[in-house]
């Protein structure tokens, strides 16, 4: 959640900077230091996005989908089953988690592409208006994807907090 929150905060900054630098009527050439800063900024964002989805999918998600032992009546430590146990909360899993778990992966793909393109083209991106506009669309998409994942992550944690633990009871048969 920390990596995702950092990514979301960084994303709006990246959009503003990319627009200001390559799309606006600003004719001033960025300095080499500015160029390096944006390249490093986007590379760090890509790292944050990958850390967010990898830790989310391989550390947090197994806790979320842990299966309660037979006979368990208190499902508080088993968020997925807790949410599905009531029709009032089941949509948080069926809609929220099922969307969040996949759409979040759009963000690292999109921002990695954007980082590589800026790394390769730098100030020459101004010479390729269609390319830079398409890259900007992908960065917007990564913001939307991270926003959806962040929103449902926060709401799911509010309704059924994921606390983790030493023991993970696996869901048998590979069900979601």
């Amino acid at each position, binding site marked *: 959640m920390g990596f995702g929150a950092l990514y979301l905060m960084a994303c709006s900054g990246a959009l503003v900077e990319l627009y200001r630098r390559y799309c606006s009527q600003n004719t001033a050439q960025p300095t080499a230091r500015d160029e390096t800063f944006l390249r490093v900024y986007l590379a760090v964002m890509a790292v944050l996005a990958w850390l967010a989805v990898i830790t989310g999918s391989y550390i947090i*998600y197994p806790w979320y989908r842990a299966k309660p032992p037979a006979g368990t009546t208190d499902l508080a430590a088993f968020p997925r089953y807790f949410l599905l146990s009531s029709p009032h909360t089941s949509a948080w899993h069926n809609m929220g988690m099922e*969307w969040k778990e996949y759409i979040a992966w*759009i963000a690292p*793909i999109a921002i990695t592409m954007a980082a*590589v393109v800026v790394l390769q083209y730098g100030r020459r991106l101004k010479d390729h208006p*269609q390319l830079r506009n398409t890259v900007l669309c992908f960065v917007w998409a990564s913001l939307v994807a991270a926003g959806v994942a962040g929103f449902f992550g926060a709401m799911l944690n509010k309704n059924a907090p994921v606390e983790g633990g030493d023991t993970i009871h696996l869901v048998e048969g590979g069900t979601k």
Partner: protein
Amino acid sequence: MNTTAATTTSLPNGRGAAAVLAAGIGSFALGLFAVLADKIPSIKNWTNFYNPTGPLSGVTTCTVFVWLAAWAILQMRWRNREVRFGPVGTVALVLLALGILLTFPPLADLF
């Protein structure tokens, strides 16, 4: 996509086009694999690469593989070429939109 040899001294748009189209392909692959793993039991079992994470592990691993493979192939073909970017960008954005839509459960449930 029509391509022509790069004649300008500036960096040709081929490598940028390759990165953009590959990201579109990767996004679409994510949505497609998510739907397939949700609807087809054999694919759901096959994508269960890591049991604690379930099918999500296989869906995302396959997505990353498809994305990087597409990027490598397109990069090899377009790296030093000037590509007609309009169709490439449009296809990439359509694939991105489809990928996002296919991850949306109410739409994925229509299949």
